[in-house]
Every structure is written in C-alpha cells, then in structure tokens.
C-alpha cells in the first residue's frame, strides 16, 4: 500500500513506525557541504542512511538484495530491499533468492554490500563523481579486521570517500540515551538484535569490550522457530507459513511471559486466562456444497443392492466349491474304474496297459486315489482320519525297523553298531514328528473349543456379537493401514525443511541411530589400521543395534494375523459384510466415510503457547540447541568478565543502569522478565534498574548521527592515507572514543 507522499510503507508492529521502508529519492543532496558526514547504520535487518545531525534517517530499507532476470529483456537486474509483490511478475525469480551481505552479524559478501551502498547513495541523491562526505558506518562489536578492512577499501576505492569511521551500534544507542538522561555513565547495554545478542558494559562512558559477551541468537531465530513450529503443527497449511508471514505474526502476537513455567501451566490446565490469551487466525475457507442426505428409499434401495451383492458372492463361492467337489468325485471314480480294470489284467501286462493312462504302476495309482479321497473329504468338510492312521503306522514301524535298538552295545559288531546308530536317529526323528502331530491336534482341539464358545455367544446375542466383531475389525484395520501409511509416507506435504540426505530421511529414528553407530565404528580416521575388534567392548555395538530390531518387527505381524482372522469370521457370519479392498472406503452399513470432511475448524490456526514459547529462546537458547547463556544471564557473565579494580562499587553502578535496545526489545514483557532474571543472579539487595531505550530501533542511528555532528568527529575518523600507511595492525586496534557525545 502506498502513502500519500509516494513512500512505500510496510508498517507493521504495535503502532510504532519503526519498521517502515523509505526509499524515495532525496533531492537535497547538493545542499549539504562536503563537511557534513553521512551516517549509516548497517544492520543485519535494516539499512539506514542519512545526514549527521538529523533525527531521522532519510532512507531506510531491508538489507537484502535480489538479482532476478527481467522477463522481457532477459538481463539480470539488481533489486535492493523489500519487494512489492505486485511488481514481481515482471521478473523471473526462480534462481534468485534474497541474499544478505551478512553472515551472522559480520559483513562478508562485499559484492552484495556494494549493490546495497549503490542503491543507498543513489536514493540519498548522490550525483557527483564521488561521494564527497566523510562516512560514519556501524559494525558489530569486535568486528574481525578483515571485514573492517574490506569495508574501508570499498568505501575508499569505489566511492572515493575522504574519511571513514567505524562504531558499534549498541554503544551509540547507549550514548544517545545517556545524553537524554535515560541511563547513566556506568551501565550495561543489552542489545538483542537480528542474529546476535550483545551485552556490553560501560565504565566512565566508554564501552569495555573485554567485559562484553555475545550470544548467537536473535530475532531471526525467534521467527524461524515460530515458522517451524507452525509448519509442524499444521502440515496441511505449511505453504502458508512463509518467513515474512511468521515475522508479521511474531510482531503482532508474541510476548515474553514473566515466568514460563507458570504461564505454561495455565495453558495446560485449560483455564479461562489461557483462552483469553489464545489468538486465532482464520484462513479463507469455502465450505464444500452440502450433500442432500439420501432419503429413506435411497437407503433401503442401497441396502437391498448390497445384500444382493453379498448373496451373489456367497452363491458364487458355493458354486465353485460344488464344481470342485464334482470334479474330484469324477476323477476318483475314473481312478477306481482304472484300478478295477487293472485287477482284471494280468501282472505282466500292467505296464503296457497303464502306459496309456500315464501312471507307472499300481502303487502310484493307489496313492493318487488316496490323495484325491483326502482332498475330497477336506472339501466336503469331513474330519480327516489321517493322523490316527499315521500313528498306527508308526507304531508298527517302530517294532519292525528297530530290532537292534534293544540289544546292548557290547554284543554288536561294528557294522551293527552303525546300523544301530542309524536306527536311533530314525527313531528320534519319527518320535519328533509324532510329538509335533500331537501338539497340532491339541491346538486344533483348542481352536474347536474356542470356536464353539464363540458360536454359543453368537447364538445368544447375534446383534451384539456382530457389532463387537465389526468394531474389532475396524480397529485392527485402522492400525494396519496406519502402519502402511507411515512406511510409505514420504514428504507428501511438501516439507522442504528436512535436512540431511534423502536416505537419512526415510529411515526412522531408531534405524538412523543404528546407522550412526555403524558409521562411527567403521570410520577410518586414516591413522592406518582399523582397530575395531581389538577390544571386547567394541562388539557390544551389535548388541545395541539388534535390540532395537526386535522391537519393531514383532507388532505388525500380530496385527495382520488378527486382521485376517477377523475378516474370515465376518465373511462367514455377517450377511452384509463386504471385505474392504485396499484404497476404498468401508461400506458396511451406515458407517461414515473414513476421511472426514474438512471443516472450518481445520482452517483455523491457533496460536496459543507459541506466543510466548518462541521469544523464550532469547532467555534459554538451549531450547533451539544453542549452548549459550540467555539474556538475563548475559548481564551476569558480562559483569564477571570485567577486569575489576574496585569491584563492588562498579558492579552496583552497572546493574542500576541497564539499557535494553535493539529490535527484539520491543517485545512486551521483556523488562519485567529481565528484572526478575537479573535479580536472581545478583546478590540480594542490589539496586537493579532496567530501562528500555527511547526508540530501540532507531536510537543506534540517532546516536551515530549525534556523534558525527560533533565537531571532533574527524579526529575519530581515518583517511585513505592513514589506512594505506598504518596497515592492518593499526586498524585492528582502531576504536573511536565515544565520550565526545
């Protein structure tokens, strides 16, 4: 949206105009004499540039660059700052994401920095043959000398700047607020920024970098955390949660809880306060056209159709069974006929007689007859008499085949001993087989008994039993389906946040752990020999791995067996049961379809706990895996690091003037939380005063501007000649003196 004076306003946040982008080209560049310095606040989030001595920077924009291709002409153009999405349709942005010159809070990509400076100076109205004003530019605390020197080179060589000065943004903010009486000469500045957080103590008006500390967490991480949490909670809408949207949500809704544990308990217990604190975001949603519920006739008709289908299926099964029985009977009768014919033929003519039919001898014929009779009996459902016959056979076999068993060893010859061993072996195997058969019989009896019990139950109360079965079937089916879905479910929702190589994602956590163990054990450190098995403890590795194996594979089998049993049972007894084919929905009776319709509720994003869970990482960076102190403990760490002479007095003075500055300190509730936190780590009774800077976002630029407007500014800056002569070591030690403010 555009304001009335043509500025592109992207105003967000609680009424403060701090995050406005202003990029209108200024026209009064030539009214400023070359002695007036240009002041630049080069931050990881926003870039602000203006004239010294003023209170507002002239040009403000987001510190990113995009280089898309213009669709019409095909050339690559450079676009700096936030983009108007309406104009983006002219460009092909597939290969150009937004790039920042920063890596953490240090400038490392000077090509991008150059594009940004080009744009900035251009919008400031520069039109000479060089930038003829001294420049004050901000950097991070203890900037590595390489970055500093490259920046100086860029300014001197490409833009022809006469003099350059570097300063720390947090320090400028502190001095500015000190000028206005918000904080005192000795104190600590806490600056949660975009990618890092600093705590810098001030003694006698100068920052003491020896006592400063920096944690690598900032507003960027808070936004990222919020984005990831929301994407995981609502995977269906994950494409909606862009980084910019998450940032907007953070600015609108996030706050810092005075005590995380008690706040969370409110939500856990579902109290009314928790309800009030929850915010809802309703995504646009069009309800699907409501289907007219089928009338009575429809329902009756459909039920009749289904019944008929079931009946037809059963009839087909019956018919098949009958035809099979008939076939077998006819085969049996033909075989028996054959046997009878054989009886009439002489012994010697048997082979020739049988050669037509395809059976080699009488025995084969008889064994075939036996087999067919058995299968016929099975098809008809008669109980099998085979086991008992088998038993008799083995008994007789026992007595026949093992004559040598009962004779003691010493009375036998060696050959007979061998025979005896063979017989013992045969006996034990047949006994084993007998035992197995007995066990099988017992199991069958058990099953029979169970079936009879179930039949009784069914007869007692047929409907109830049916319901029970159906419910059980549904449950087991769901479980099996879910497992299948888990196994084959890849990144179906387009989650592109997953790290790691493709193979690593498809494995479960347990499998990945096993692979990690294997790879660490197998890793050849290049020292020569592989000493894996030398110690006994190494082999414990396999124990660790195999235990997990057993856990996973047991369950699915039992579930699937259960499913098969239930399916068969239901097919027998339930007249309306049609087995669920994979992929289709269940159609037994009036059960509602498996996939429930998406309701309005599904399109409502609930932001409750995330409101204060995300900024919590500023105080506990180990929530996102960064092993460093949080904001409140940083003040303590910084005080501890100070080289101290008169310890106690200085410390008291430090804690009685703590300034919060930087974009993140706009979060409500930070002041109270900091006070509590710092009180916990300082000795009891210490005066603790925490104040917020007048304008946490712009104060750094304003402080720098006030510093540059000072008459002694040039004594703090260095020229190209200085830079060339004095070299890198001098640049390393270069610091401005802030006390001129």
């Amino acid at each position: 949206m555009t304001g009335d004076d043509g500025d592109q306003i992207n105003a967000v946040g609680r009424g403060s105009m701090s995050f406005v982008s202003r990029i209108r080209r200024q026209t009064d560049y030539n009214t400023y004499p070359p002695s007036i310095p240009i002041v630049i606040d080069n931050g990881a989030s926003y870039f602000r540039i203006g004239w010294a001595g003023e209170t507002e920077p002239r040009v403000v924009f987001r510190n990113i660059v995009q280089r898309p291709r213009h669709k019409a002409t095909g050339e690559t153009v450079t676009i700096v700052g936030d983009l108007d999405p309406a104009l983006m349709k002219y460009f092909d942005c597939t290969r150009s994401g937004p790039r920042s010159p920063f890596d953490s809070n240090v400038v490392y990509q000077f090509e991008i920095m150059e594009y940004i400076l080009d744009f900035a100076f251009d919008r400031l109205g520069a039109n000479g043959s060089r930038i003829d004003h001294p420049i004050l530019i901000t950097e991070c605390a203890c900037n590595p000398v390489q970055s500093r020197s490259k920046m100086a080179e860029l300014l001197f060589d490409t833009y022809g700047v006469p003099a350059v000065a570097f300063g720390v943004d947090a320090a400028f903010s502190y001095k500015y607020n000190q000028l206005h009486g918000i904080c005192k000469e000795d104190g600590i500045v806490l600056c949660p920024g975009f990618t890092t957080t600093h705590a810098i103590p001030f003694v006698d008006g100068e920052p003491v970098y020896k006592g400063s500390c920096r944690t690598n967490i900032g507003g960027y991480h808070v936004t990222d955390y919020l984005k990831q949490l929301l994407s995981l909670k609502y995977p269906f809408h994950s494409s909606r949660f862009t980084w910019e949207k998450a940032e907007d949500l953070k600015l609108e809704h996030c706050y810092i809880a005075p005590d995380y544990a008690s706040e969370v308990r409110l939500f856990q217990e579902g109290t009314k306060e928790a309800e009030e604190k929850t915010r809802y975001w309703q995504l646009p949603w069009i309800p699907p056209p409501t289907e007219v519920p089928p009338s009575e006739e429809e329902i009756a008709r459909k039920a009749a159709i289904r019944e008929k289908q079931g009946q037809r299926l059963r009839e087909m099964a019956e018919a098949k069974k009958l035809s099979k029985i008939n076939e077998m009977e006819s085969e049996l009768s033909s075989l028996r006929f054959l046997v009878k014919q054989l009886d009439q033929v002489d012994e010697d003519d048997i082979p020739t007689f049988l050669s037509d039919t395809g059976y080699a001898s009488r025995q084969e014929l008889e064994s075939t007859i036996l087999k067919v009779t058995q299968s016929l009996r099975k098809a008809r459902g008669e109980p099998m008499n085979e086991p008992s016959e088998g038993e008799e056979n083995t008994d007789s076999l026992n007595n026949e085949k093992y004559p040598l068993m009962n004779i003691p060893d010493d009375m036998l010859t060696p050959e007979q001993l061998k025979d005896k061993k063979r017989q013992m072996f045969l006996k034990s195997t047949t006994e084993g087989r007998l035992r197995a058969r007995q066990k099988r019989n017992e199991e069958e009896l058990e099953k029979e008994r169970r079936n009879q019990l179930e039949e009784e139950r069914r007869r007692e109360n047929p409907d109830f039993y049916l319901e029970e079965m159906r419910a059980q079937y549904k449950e087991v089916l769901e479980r099996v389906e879910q497992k299948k879905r888990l196994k084959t479910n890849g990144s179906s929702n387009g989650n592109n946040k997953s790290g790691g190589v493709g193979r690593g994602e498809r494995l479960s956590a347990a499998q990945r752990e096993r692979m990690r163990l294997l790879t660490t054990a197998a890793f050849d450190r290049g020292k020569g020999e592989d000493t894996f098995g030398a110690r006994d403890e190494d082999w414990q590795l396999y124990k660790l791995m195999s235990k997990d194996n057993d856990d996973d594979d047991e369950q699915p089998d039992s579930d699937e067996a259960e499913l098969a049993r239930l399916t068969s049972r239901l097919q027998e007894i339930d007249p309306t049961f049609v087995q669920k084919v994979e992929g289709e929905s269940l159609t037994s009776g009036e059960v509602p379809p498996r996939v429930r319709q998406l309701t309005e509720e599904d399109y409502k994003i609930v932001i409750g706990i995330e409101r204060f869970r995300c900024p919590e990482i500023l105080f506990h960076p180990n929530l996102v895996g960064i092993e460093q102190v949080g904001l409140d403990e940083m003040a303590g760490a910084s005080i501890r690091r100070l080289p101290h002479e008169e310890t106690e007095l200085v410390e008291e003075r430090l804690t009685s003037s703590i300034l919060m500055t930087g974009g993140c300190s706009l979060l409500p509730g930070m002041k109270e939380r900091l006070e509590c936190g710092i009180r916990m780590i300082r000795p009891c009774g210490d005066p603790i005063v925490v104040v917020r800077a007048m304008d946490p976002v712009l104060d750094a630029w304003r402080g720098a501007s006030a510093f540059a407007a000072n008459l002694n500014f040039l004594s703090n800056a260095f020229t190209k000649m200085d830079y060339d002569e004095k070299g890198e070591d001098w640049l390393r030690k270069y610091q401005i003196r802030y006390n001129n403010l």
Partner: protein
Amino acid sequence: MYVIADLGLLQLLIRCTGPDRTGSGLLVLLLYVLISRENREVTRDRNRRERELMEADIVVSSRLSFKKMQSSEKYPKGQSTRRWKHLKQILQADNCPPDLPNYVNIESPPSTQPCKRICDVTGFEAPYADPRTNLRYANAHVFKTLRSLSPDQVHQYLSIRNAAVVLK
C-alpha cells in the same frame, strides 16, 4: 501469435473475396477487425506495464555517476561469486593477540542453570522422553500423537532442537 493469425486471416479474406463467397468473406473481414483491435490492446497493456515498472523505480541502474568503477566491470558476469570467505574462514585466518577482545573472545559461555525441558510438540513442561525417537513429551495423550508421527516430522522436531542424528 496474433500477427500470424492476422496474416492467415488476410490470406483467407483475399481468397474468399472471389466470385461466389461474399458471405463468408464478410465474416472473415469482421473477425480480422476484431483480432487487430485486440492486438492493439495487448501492446498498449504491455507498454503500460513497462511504464509502471519504470515509475516504481526499484531497480538499481548499472551506471552510477559517483562510483569510480562500476559494479558490472568489477564483477564481470559469469565469474563465480563463491570467492568470499565465510565467517568461519575469516575467523580462522584472523591471527589476533588473545589478550585483546576479539570476535571469538567475546562469545558467551554456556549456561550454568539446568536445561529447561519442554515438550517438543506442545510446549508444556516435559519430564519424560520417548526412548525410540528421543522426543520429549508431557503426558500420555501427547505420547499417543508422538507415536503416530512420520519419521520426517520426527526428524524435523529433533532438528529444531539441534538433536537430530545427521548422516553425512
């Protein structure tokens, strides 16, 4: 596309204005007029859009007067831009005296307070952890949802906490 359609129609028109086809000829003439009108509209649109883009003036022009050397000359097209050292490399190459404060010196120490354990899914206090996936959970209800997560989601939850096993 429209130009080609125009030519085609023109040919058709010429052929149609023969002896017996005046009716279809008129139809073709009408079509021709309509299409050419549309053509003009399209070009007008395109011009308007280009003007809009130019007025927005978001592009950095490639020649700026105050620069001694233009960026197109400094970074010729096609050269790899990967020659910038990342922060890690800068810090390694930086040989600074250890007694002075420098970028590495002023890093914060790890926390001395006990680590706060919150549930990965809901954010409540989480005294328990799932042995199979190593995720933290608050109560049995959350545990049920944990077990039904896909390996992808598990990996993502763990990587938020920087606790995922990354296979290289």
